């Protein structure tokens, strides 16, 4: 990769500045009461920050497709872990409302 397109110091500084701005933004948004959107906004900002770090600082943008697939699959399996576990937690109370045999 040493020969391919490579981010410059300028890119790094720009990404760094963006990360700091996003940090300030997320702290600011936390002072507002947006109801359930507080969590959504904060996690969206965190994901944008994470993407910036991965794509530029970790050079995922310039990496092979294989590496990208590896990262995506980790996130995918993490979602499986959370999602399928939640399928239990979120439906535990259902029996009280929906019971075809009652």
């Amino acid at each position, binding site marked *: 990769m040493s020969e391919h397109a490579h981010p410059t110091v300028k890119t790094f500084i720009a990404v760094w500045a963006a990360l700091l701005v996003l940090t300030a933004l997320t702290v600011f948004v936390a002072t507002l009461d947006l109801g359930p959107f507080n969590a959504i906004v904060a996690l969206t900002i965190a994901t944008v920050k994470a993407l910036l770090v991965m794509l530029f600082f970790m050079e995922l943008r310039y990496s092979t497709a294989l590496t990208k697939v590896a990262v995506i699959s980790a996130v995918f399996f993490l979602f499986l872990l959370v999602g399928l576990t939640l399928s239990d937690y979120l439906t535990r109370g259902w*029996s*009280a409302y929906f019971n*075809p*045999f*009652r």
Partner: protein
Amino acid sequence: MWSNLPLFPARASTMAGHVDALYFALVAMAAFFTFLVSALILFFAIRYRKERNPVATQIHGSTALELLWTGIPLGIVMIIFVWSSVIFFMQTRPPKGAMEVYTVGKQWMWKFQHTEGQREINELHVPAGRDVRMIMTSQDVIHSFYVPAFRIKADVLPGRYTSTWFHATTPGRYHLFCAEYCGTQHSGMLGEVIVMEPADYDRWASGGVDGSLASAGEKTFQQYGCSMCHRGDAAGRGPNLMGVFGRPVLLDDGRTVTADESYVRESILNPGAKIASGFKNIMPTFEGQLSEEEVIGLVAYVKALGNGTANLPIPVSEPNSGTYPLAPKAEGSAAKSDKATTPAKTEPAKPAAKQ
């Protein structure tokens, strides 16, 4: 009766037939495929052994065959899935109006409390021909309530209620096992389920008890001063418990829960977890102060308040029918029922079940 058919468990509940039918179907399916594969292997091994077939024919594969032996098993397992899920639904849905037996598992014994007031250890008397629902919790680790003759099993967890049900068909004595490993005497955590003719059961249940489970709960209710706040009128600092059980309760954060056994239990031990709308979080926790048996008594009492078979000692409102709490009304009055029996102790004193 156990020695009659030593390779097969007794069949003593309505569920057993359903489970066995599916089991035999699966045995047939498994036997078919096992014999198919074994027979093919044997046949090929003999027919195509090197002496007889010195030169192998290279075959790369066949998409048609692959689809066939992907599709057929897929179809079979989908049938099994539907069939077994229907049985599972029957197993996990207790019918309405089932009689209830409260169960506490602890290292290493089973304690049962009947709503009529009978208490027993490691022996469970139930009538044949009636639906019985077990409401179970554990005092320590995870146990599992398992009666092979009924083909039912349910883990008994600390900190919450789980339930299962059965409809025993044949009078007799059946094994009760703890099926979830629970420590030193796990294999000694045995019990016996004694299925009786309904008339015998009624005689047994009414013999030698001085008060139902709900009445024991009522005593606990008085003893811990619950009635100070949970009054039968609007003046109480806590919700009026008349007619609450089994109905939806509006919470202060806007959610709605059904007032089932688990909710009542949680509200006693962990009052702050779900506050009914319009009330403050001022109730102290009774975690560590009440035994599981006392909690069960209270749950049974609240349940009795819910279906009108018991009354709060203070003037009562008319039974609620909508979402609780309705606008409180105070009218009518009932005399404080002041039975002079001694409070029930936690350990069973009734020799109803012979050990």
